[in-house]
């Protein structure tokens, strides 16, 4: 079965590339443009993995992560956090709140694709 991926980021300019890339990798791709939309999509569509940006309108990536982890139905959802902040306090916070991995912007798409592949295989 094809794995599904949700890309949650408010920047259209990266959604274009990431969507293309993930489709090319052979995944089913959904997109969300803010935190609330991300939560809605996750609880409805149960994607296997979420590429989650931290700084988003309405709800931050941290909020989304916390809500997902609080819901037992979604406990298998993998979360890969994308952060432009790059502060180690943010990374510590993300890991504490239950993200499965993080990537600091900017990143190479190859690195990202590899990370996604690894996470899905391990699961």
């Amino acid at each position, binding site marked *: 079965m094809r794995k599904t991926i949700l890309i949650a980021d408010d*920047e259209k*300019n*990266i959604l*274009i*590339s*990431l969507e*293309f*890339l993930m489709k*090319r990798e052979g995944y089913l791709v959904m997109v969300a443009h803010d935190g609330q939309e991300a939560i809605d999509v996750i609880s409805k569509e149960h994607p296997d993995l979420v590429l989650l940006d931290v*700084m988003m309108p309405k709800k931050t990536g*941290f*909020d989304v992560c*916390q809500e997902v982890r*609080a819901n037992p139905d979604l406990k298998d959802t993998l979360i890969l956090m*994308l952060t*432009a*902040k*790059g*502060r*180690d*306090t*943010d990374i*510590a*916070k993300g890991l*504490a*709140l239950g993200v499965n991995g993080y990537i*600091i*912007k*900017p*990143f*190479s*798409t*190859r690195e990202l694709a590899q990370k996604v592949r690894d996470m899905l295989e391990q699961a």
Partner: protein
Amino acid sequence: MRRFDWRVAIGVAIIGIICLLWLLATGILIWSTLDGAGRDAVAATLGPSIELLILMWAISLGAVGIALRWLVAYFMTAPARLAEDAQVLLGTDVKRQLQPSGSIENRSLTELINQLVQQRETLREEMDALVQEAAHNTELEKNRLAALMSELSKSVVVCNLDGRILLYNNRARRQFQRLSHPPKVTTGVELLGLGRSIYGLFDRKLLTHALDNIQHRLQGNVTSPSAQFVTTTQSGQLLRVQMAPVRAVQHETKESAQMTGFVLLTENITDEFEALSQQDHVLNTLTEGSRAAIANMQAALDVLEYPDLQADMQASLLRVLREETQGLGERIHELKSTTVNGFMSHWSLEDMQGADLVEAVINRINAREEVTATKSSVDTSIWLKVESFTLLEAITYLAELIYQQCHVNMVQVRLGIIENHGQLDLCWTPKNNEKDIRLHCEKDSIRLGGEMSSLTIQDVVERHDGAFWFEHETDGHQALFRFLLPLAKPQEYQQLSALVNEKSRPEFYDFDLFQASEHARSLEDCKLSELSYTVFDTETTGLNPADGDEIIQVGAIRIVNGKLLQQERFDQLVDPKRTIPAASIPIHGIQPEMVQGQPVIAEVLPAFHAFVGDTVLVAHNAAFDMRCLQVKETETGVVFDQPVLDTLLLSAVVHPNQESHGLDAIAERFNINIHGRHTALGDAMATAQVFLHLIHLLDEQGIQTMGQARAAAQNTYYARLKY
């Protein structure tokens, strides 16, 4: 009105009775020598003219009364006045020639007293010359201190442990002028003045917290036990404050130095802060914004490399690249127009041992009673950079939140280290293992005991450049709030005694400034000589405040510790919003155009109220001035409920025999020159000097406390006047 003299009345009555008895005795004697015919003849002669006899008796009594009155004035009142005047000369150092009056003996006595006063003056002057010479060196030292203080670029305020201001420099004065609110009326003197409370300037809790920190460090023998914090004032200015203890001079004992007061060094960093915030903003947009932009570009580039890309996809990716490069260019331009000198932490973080912080957290939480906090595991090697006041408030708030939301009344505090950060946890065991409970409080304003702070938890965390979250431990059953806080280098502890023994203490600390003065006595028991006073006077459009007469000028001056503070004055014209009667202008000298554009009474009274603060109000004929203030209570909402003393009444207490207790007459009695009589400030100054003399004279009569003075004043005739 001349007072009725009982002595004259009693004298006349006694003489009248004696005359009557004498006449009766004579009559009875004559009556007994007469025979029947003689008696009839006498009765017939005197019977019809008995009224005449009584009238003559009464007239003679009147004559006796007048004579007695003159005699009393001549032989008794004149000496009594002389005695009162002499008492003034004895009790104060007034130089004045007494006017001879009354009998020859009284006159010569007056002359003698004048000569004695002259002699005393000569002696005193000689003495003064000697003292002055001796004081010269001390004065030099004081001047050196004054020069040093005024040269300092930081503002300095010295307080005793009660928070009373004992010393401040010019810089501080200017700084607090800027803080004064509203700036139109006041000049900052209502905030900063000798004897005023520092808590009018700074939040009492904040200072108490800083003092506690210093005390704690003193006990721990830290080398430089100072504390610092940043605070906002009511007018929105940002101050960075450094607090250092003033310690008692030690006499070769090893016990830890006792704190007797503290020095506050303050710096207004409002402008600096604004500049820094802007720099922060630029830097943040640069780093975080650029990361995102570069990520967008890199992803687009990576995708562009795929050979089988469709034309429209290629076009949109190129557009992404163009947009992002342009955005980056703009950001660089923005950076160039702002000078960025480096990343500085604008909030004043201070180094604190982690264990101390944990202890403070526990004490703060336990002080609030609902929740009990205990220490769990604490790494004592950790030193943190914290702004402890706000951090403690935040944690205390969280403990209350746990109590309210989870109904748990036991929390544990934990401190560990994770990579480059200290990790402070507030943990608890949720009831019934409710794992699903979630607490979102980052954006909560910190509320403590009904008091709402303008800060949120997130603000506090950002000040520390740290992180904060709520989590359930995966192993174990605990829930926790976690703070990541910046680490500091461990401070070295040094033996304090080594430093104290060095001769580094400046010698100007020998003024007797630091004797704590706050007595646990009620105001009634306070000594008049130790209280702080605001002596004031108002000029008005007329004498009927209740019927539309308005205040047009308020003047006031302060007395602290028995000293008139010439610099700390309040002098304000008021626009009465009505005409000033022409008849009143010669009295106060205020022309209608002078009050134009001046603040109205609703602006002036709040400022004056702040100037008065917690001092005792003093005025001459205070009933009138207080009435003027009282009729404005409903309009301005400012209530002057301070205790009041009236120099007119007190003068009547001290000198019951003087005919006039007008300000001019009293001033003449004390030989006070009034500068600017009938200006509010001039009269207030004169009243203040009169009041200082009165305190001395009351003391000699055994009237020493506020309660005694008020009781004595109430018993005088003048206390019954009403406005």
